[in-house]
């Protein structure tokens, strides 16, 4: 069964120069050397990932860098249009009209959604400027993926990582599709509560926090949250993501397949729910 990976950071050696590597280490907190795009493609192939969502991250206000920039994401998508979908990123405190910035840096580049990480980017997700940005995204019908859950990096705000913040946003902007990343771990039930009561909120299960991917996803989807609850209540809410390069893609796909969910639920998580969010369902 082909897979859609909704959470890939394309921090590949083709775009990570010395300055960006410094930013990757100091702002993003990732200290492993970048791999070439070729090995990202091989990881996707190895894991039967037919399409990956590439996420930009605009850290320009905090650290004058992007990991990577909207243009860099767009250039990779342009090179492999059948393999990748690109999501841009825009710090809400950037100077200028958010509408114009979105048009210039997202729409005009063919990017199809936005990635925000209030903790790493360092902005209040309920600030006036951030709310304006969500309004523009809703108007443009661009989905939003946001970091929720633990940020290991001590210089970042943990407060901005809490999933309950997004209940407020989801209710104010009911037509804005919002993906809460990492199932909000360790605030998993908070993230689930937000998703359950808002039709426009979804949950990605990217990365591992409590052990190996096998251990983590089994714990998350059968113990912390009972399997019956996942299958009955969250079957249209959960989407697959890896969080590459913080984790290898084949390990995450294998772990999800090893959870032992019903086949149709597994297919929904690994592929169909993501296609619906992207508006690409067959």
């Amino acid at each position, binding site marked *: 069964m082909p897979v859609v990976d909704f959470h890939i950071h394309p921090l590949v*050696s083709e775009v990570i120069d010395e300055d960006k590597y410094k930013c990757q*280490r100091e702002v*993003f*907190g*990732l*200290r*492993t050397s970048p*791999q*070439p795009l*070729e*090995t990202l493609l*091989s*990881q996707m*192939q*190895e894991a039967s990932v037919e399409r990956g969502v590439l996420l930009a991250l605009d850290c320009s206000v905090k650290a004058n860098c992007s990991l990577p920039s909207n243009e860099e994401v767009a250039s990779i998508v342009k090179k492999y249009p059948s393999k990748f979908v690109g999501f841009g990123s825009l710090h809400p405190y950037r100077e200028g009209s958010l509408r114009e910035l979105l048009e210039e840096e997202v729409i005009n580049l063919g990017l199809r959604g936005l990635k925000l990480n209030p903790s790493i980017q360092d902005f209040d997700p309920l600030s006036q400027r951030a709310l304006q940005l969500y309004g523009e995204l809703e108007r443009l019908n661009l989905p939003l993926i946001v970091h929720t859950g633990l940020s*290991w*990096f001590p210089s970042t705000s943990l407060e901005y990582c809490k999933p309950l913040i997004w209940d407020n946003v989801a209710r104010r902007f009911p037509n804005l599709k919002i993906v809460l990343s990492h199932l909000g771990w360790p605030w998993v039930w908070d993230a689930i509560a937000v998703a359950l009561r808002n039709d426009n909120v979804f949950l990605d299960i990217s*990365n*591992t*926090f409590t*052990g*190996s*991917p*096998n*251990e983590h996803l089994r714990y998350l989807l059968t113990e912390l949250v009972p399997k019956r609850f996942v299958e009955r209540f969250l079957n249209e809410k959960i989407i697959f993501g890896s969080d590459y*390069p*913080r*984790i*290898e893609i*084949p*390990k995450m796909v294998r772990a999800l397949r090893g959870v032992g969910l019903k086949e149709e639920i597994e297919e929904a998580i690994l592929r169909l729910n993501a296609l619906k969010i992207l508006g690409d369902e067959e």
Partner: protein
Amino acid sequence: MRVYMREFKVVSKREREIINITDRVRELIKESGIKEGLALVFSKHTTTGIFINENERGLERDVINYFNEAVRDDGDYFHHHYFYKDGRMAVNAWAHLRSILVGLNVVIPLRDGELLLGSRENVYLAEFDGPKERTLVITVLGE
């Protein structure tokens, strides 16, 4: 005595794979210009291995299958926790353990500028946590 040292890259395409690097090593020996001596091939990655064995497709599969069975993926490994040094979870104890079993280098004698390998012997990189770009080092000592 002359010393020639050079890093070179090998890109794996599979998560677990063994890659025949004999021809690449031969090219580098030629480049070194050293005729008699020793060549040391070393991997800079603790989730890989370097070994010499027979170039036979079935055996190559057997090697991977053997290590999959010898070291379980799903063991209760202390290594599988957040690794501050990398800024990510460490989730590959099994790859490190397989690497330890194989070892990270081989030494091959040189004669007349050629590797003094047996007729069945080839040099392999074992990839235990790919696909990744790997950096290997060849050091040639001799005259």
